[in-house]
């Protein structure tokens, strides 16, 4: 049909660009932070993203997987991905030596509504690998500190050895322009300097003004249940609770159907959804 215009090869939405792994920082067990740099200088300049967006990462020969961007767009030049080794693609990624080349496409997803969030208090609640997308947001808001009111981070890990970005986050404890609450479920050796207990206990230490607060939640499915309870208790409007959700994804661009939930696609309508969206989408959480 002549009335359709097709995109040229360069606009191929599935085309990964090559990027080099320039640094590998082991985090906790089975988690590593990969620092990537596009091979094409033009891509390096033009690749911009919002906190909360993700990329499709290809390990050549193995396959593709969606991964959140963990670095902040306020710190251009590097792209950091924090990956957990859990299946084929991630295992293959962990086998790659430094300086290997991988494929990247994106950024995809809606990302956090950072503009709408300006002039508000932010309550960031993370559990486990949920910190990966939230780290991007965290550094974004800290680098744009003046645009936001109070900033609270709550992050929980099972034990100290399992806390992602531990040293980076511990260094935030000294900051006076934010409240950083880090907790571990268990501290058998008694060496953990701050809070002990599940994340939800951290709510005891904070005041929340529901009128001007955005809560941002990301963590394992079980965490949502309890954190949401707390947030609703504090009267937070359902459409100001933001969550980053995970689904199976193949294309990342709303075609392959895998991440569809009800009438939304996690990849293009999400992965950031409000709690209100979630209640209206069966099976969402």
């Amino acid at each position, binding site marked *: *049909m002549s009335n359709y215009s*097709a995109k040229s090869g360069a606009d*191929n*939405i*599935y085309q990964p660009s090559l990027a080099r792994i320039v640094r590998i920082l082991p985090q906790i067990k089975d988690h590593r932070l990969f620092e990537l740099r596009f091979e094409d200088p033009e891509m390096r300049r033009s690749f911009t993203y919002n906190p909360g967006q993700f990329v499709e990462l290809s390990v050549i*020969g193995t*396959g593709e997987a969606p991964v959140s961007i963990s670095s902040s767009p306020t710190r251009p030049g590097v792209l950091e991905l924090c990956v957990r080794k859990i299946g084929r693609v991630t295992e293959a990624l962990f086998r790659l030596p430094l300086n290997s080349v991988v494929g990247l496409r994106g950024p995809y997803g809606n990302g956090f509504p950072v503009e709408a969030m300006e002039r508000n208090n932010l309550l960031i609640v993370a559990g486990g690998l949920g910190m990966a997308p939230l780290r991007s947001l965290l550094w974004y808001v800290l680098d744009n500190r003046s645009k936001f009111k109070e900033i609270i981070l709550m992050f929980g890990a099972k034990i100290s050895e399992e806390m992602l970005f531990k040293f980076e986050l511990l260094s935030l404890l000294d900051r006076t322009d934010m409240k950083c609450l880090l907790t571990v479920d268990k501290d058998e050796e008694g060496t953990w300097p701050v809070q002990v207990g599940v994340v939800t206990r951290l709510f005891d230490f904070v005041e929340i003004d529901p009128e001007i607060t955005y809560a941002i939640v990301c963590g394992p499915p079980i965490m949502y249940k309890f954190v949401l309870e707390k947030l609703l208790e504090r009267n937070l409007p359902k459409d100001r609770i933001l969550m980053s959700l995970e689904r*199976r994804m193949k294309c990342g661009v709303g075609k392959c159907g895998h991440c569809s939930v009800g009438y939304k696609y996690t990849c*293009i309508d999400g992965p950031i959804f409000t709690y209100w969206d979630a209640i209206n989408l069966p099976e969402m959480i």
Partner: protein
Amino acid sequence: MQIVKLPKENLDKFVGSLSKFGEIHAPIKKDENTYLFSKIEDLSKIELNYNRTILPPKKYFLPPTETIFRFSPEKGYEPPKDNLNRKYVLLGVHSCDIHGLKILDLVFSGTYVDNYYFTRRKNTSIIGVSCIPDDMCFCRSMETDFVEDGFDLFLSDMDDSYLVRIATSLGDDMVRASQSLFKEVDKEDIAEYKRKSNEMKNYFKIGLELYNLPEIMDLEYESKIWGEMGEKCLSCGTCSMVCPTCYCYDVFDELNLDGKTGERRRRWDSCLFKDHALVAGGLNFRKERSSRVKNRYFHKQRGFVAQYGRPSCVGCGRCIQSCPAKVDIVEVITKIRSVDYE
């Protein structure tokens, strides 16, 4: 819209003339009751009086499996250069299937345009043909028994001739290239066309009511029907393969024997498959077969409506005909709508 008349005795000549516009594909008879779209080498094989083809025309635009990239560690990912640009003429497409393509167009366009799909779409001209519904068609209730656009020409069967609607400039070129084969439409033709058109509704044996359906589906989210269908469904994927509007696909990398280079391929997938919503670490968002059957119907009759303003079912009856377990979309929806069914 311009409408001309093609006497049936001129059909073969006309179709023959279309090869200038691309490789001709049309329905042929495969077996007693089965048809498929196939490349036509012998015009006499074309079967324009058919109920439905096993696979819908989507196979031409989103093939069951295709290579989207070739890769190597050195060069990265390169799209294959071959035959996306071949020209096709797809003859004999039913109204419902044209609607099916229009639905796929919605999905494959948007912010991200799938150029594999749209390049093929651009290179294929569509010639529709009218049909008589059989006992599994319910296109009327899905509002797809008539089609306004999405084709170049549309042939309406008038027994001795076809009335040919010309919808695009390309369609016009096709007609003009064999002008002498066509005649003007006269008064009698108009009367006959109206008569046939009025008769149409009498042919439908089944149908479903769309009014308020999304809300009813929401209300019946927990209906026991899903469990019942889950017991019957085999997760064989047949319904998704044959559906003109199902578009889920899987992507996988296939390596060559050097263990380095290979191809990234995609292939039709189905939300009825167990691992459709499985994520790494073993969490499955639709573990039960019942939740997967439910998902299929919800996505078509509820989710798609919210997203694009119409259901993604065109009433072609393919899934009804080919589901081995007789999971029947009309029956399911009818039960859901029924006041007595609880």
